[in-house]
């Protein structure tokens, strides 16, 4: 890679007999925003804490800016970190909190004050310097925590589920704000979350983690549209699964509920073997349409009227396929129990490797 700034190489972490992170590899470019996405307990925090220096890897190397920091203490790493529980110092004012890192670094009083003022304006809390943390809302506290982490101009910013303690509205606005500040400062950032929407909307790249391993690394577009494993496909976004049987490997023909569809590309599994295909709801339409020439017959199941969108479930044998259609004032929504055909493009069909 052209400008690798953070490099995590073959990192493993054992707690006693259990391996919590296994063979983790990642290169992060300068200025990049990378998310670790995965269910609770998959090792995201542990991996982040190894980058921060709070945990020591059982094996592997971590390089920051070309320097091996694997065994460096956290207070020597020049990293900014934001914690889920804010972790502001309750005995210090907002301004003192933000100045903490500068003061430790021996920066002059005047410089501290100027930097605090700048940070307060960046987080849009210019008049909050003399307040104490307990006088702030959760969202404000987390913004102060971000300012405190960024004030000493660290090389790397780490955020461990910084939004999950906040309520939905604040979460979304703060999400955009964090991303905007990160872009403006151009700081290399790792963001840990279990919320796929957060990861998809904020990141340059996402590392999807499962059971201590990086299942797939890619842009949000790649992760969503070309999930590499069954786990990634099912964890990120909604997915319709079609259980079928391979009719022909080289033609890519699959039999689903007695009907045959052609993928137009070879399949690895042998003929006669069971196989799982997957389709995103937005890749399916009612009836074959332009560019969605493959089809399956089924029966309309549940119909949910959501306003601008109508969510329809179509039963194809034992499989249920969910799809969204736009509400068209000129035609009434489909009726449950009536026969229907679904159309999709072979390109959008995911063949899931287990």
């Amino acid at each position: 890679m052209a400008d690798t700034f953070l490099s995590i190489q073959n990192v493993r972490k054992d707690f006693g007999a259990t391996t919590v992170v296994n063979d983790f590899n990642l290169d992060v470019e300068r200025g990049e925003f990378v998310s670790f996405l995965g269910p609770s307990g998959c090792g995201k925090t542990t991996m982040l804490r190894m980058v921060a220096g709070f945990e020591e890897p059982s094996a592997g190397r971590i390089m920051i800016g070309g320097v091996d920091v694997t065994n460096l203490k956290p207070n020597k790493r020049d990293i900014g970190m934001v914690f889920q529980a804010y972790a502001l110092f309750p005995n210090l004012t907002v301004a003192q909190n933000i100045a903490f890192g500068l003061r430790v670094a021996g920066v002059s009083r005047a410089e501290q004050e100027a930097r605090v003022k700048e940070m307060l304006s960046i987080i849009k809390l210019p008049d909050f310097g003399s307040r104490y943390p307990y006088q702030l809302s959760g969202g404000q506290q987390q913004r102060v925590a971000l300012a405190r982490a960024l004030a000493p101009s660290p090389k790397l910013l780490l955020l461990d589920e910084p939004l999950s303690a906040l309520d939905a509205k604040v979460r979304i606005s703060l999400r955009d704000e964090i991303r905007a500040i990160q872009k403006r400062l151009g700081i290399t950032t790792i963001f840990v979350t279990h919320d796929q929407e957060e990861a998809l909307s904020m990141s340059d790249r996402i590392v999807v983690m499962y059971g201590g391993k990086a299942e797939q690394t890619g842009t949000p577009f790649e992760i969503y549209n070309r999930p590499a494993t069954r786990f990634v496909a099912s964890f990120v976004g909604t997915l319709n699964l079609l259980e079928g049987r391979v009719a022909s490997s080289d033609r890519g023909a699959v039999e689903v509920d007695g009907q045959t569809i052609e993928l137009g590309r070879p399949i690895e599994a042998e003929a006669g073997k069971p196989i799982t295909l997957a389709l995103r709801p937005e890749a399916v339409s009612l009836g074959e349409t332009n560019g969605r020439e493959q089809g399956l017959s089924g029966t309309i199941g549940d119909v949910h009227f959501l306003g601008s969108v109508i969510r329809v479930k179509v039963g194809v044998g034992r499989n249920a396929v969910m799809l969204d259609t736009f509400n068209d004032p000129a035609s009434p929504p489909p009726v449950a129990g009536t026969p229907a055909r679904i159309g999709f493009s072979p390109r959008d069909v995911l063949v899931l490797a287990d």
Partner: protein
Amino acid sequence: MKSSRFWAWATFTVGALYFFVPLIATLEFSLRMRRGEYSFDAYRVVFGDDRFQATFTYSVVVAILTILLGVLVVVPTAYWIRLRMPHLRPVVEFITLLPLIIPAIVIVFGYIRMYGSSSPLPFLATARGTDALLIIGYATLALPYMYRAVDTGLRTIDVRTLTEAAQILGAGWTTIISRVILPNVLIAVLSGAFLSFAIVIGEFTMASLLNRPAFGPYLQNIGANRAYEPAALAVLAFAITWACMSVIQILSRFAPKSANQPR
């Protein structure tokens, strides 16, 4: 409902009488030195006594040093136990309770055996050494109170995350303890300190057996030889203890408001 309230008041009244009657009686007696009228003569005598001034000053200095030693030992220990060795907490808690179980006299005899003038660590060979030993002994006596107070203070903050937040900002251990941990448990430390003060000011056994000119032995000496002055001293000692307790009460109102818990 009504009868339970009656019994509550009855119990309270009996308790209050049990507590206040001897106190009032002592106070009243201490004021009767001059025949036929109330006066502060006993107090005047006490305050005018050189030995009172000397022993009281001695005990105050010893108390302050005891508090400093206690803070230096207990705050880092309690902090470290919470941060890195939480599984050892019950053990440490038990150890800090030992001074309540082992009588002070046993500790003193242990000291005399261990640190006599012919031992490898002859603390008792000099007056200063004995003073140091007395302070160490008092710190031990105050340990149960000091440790509990500090540990309770630490419970109100998220020790681990605050430590890590400070670490990642570049702080070393000294900065973390002095700027993050200590200020947040300061109120708790001060209550521990005033408890220690109250204990040290009137302590008799250790001071007497180590033969130090402390306030406790002086109280005892006066008590054995005079009539009105001991009553005045008892009232004074009580007032000091009570003042310490009130300060603790007032301080606890200023305990830092924790904003660490996500709402």
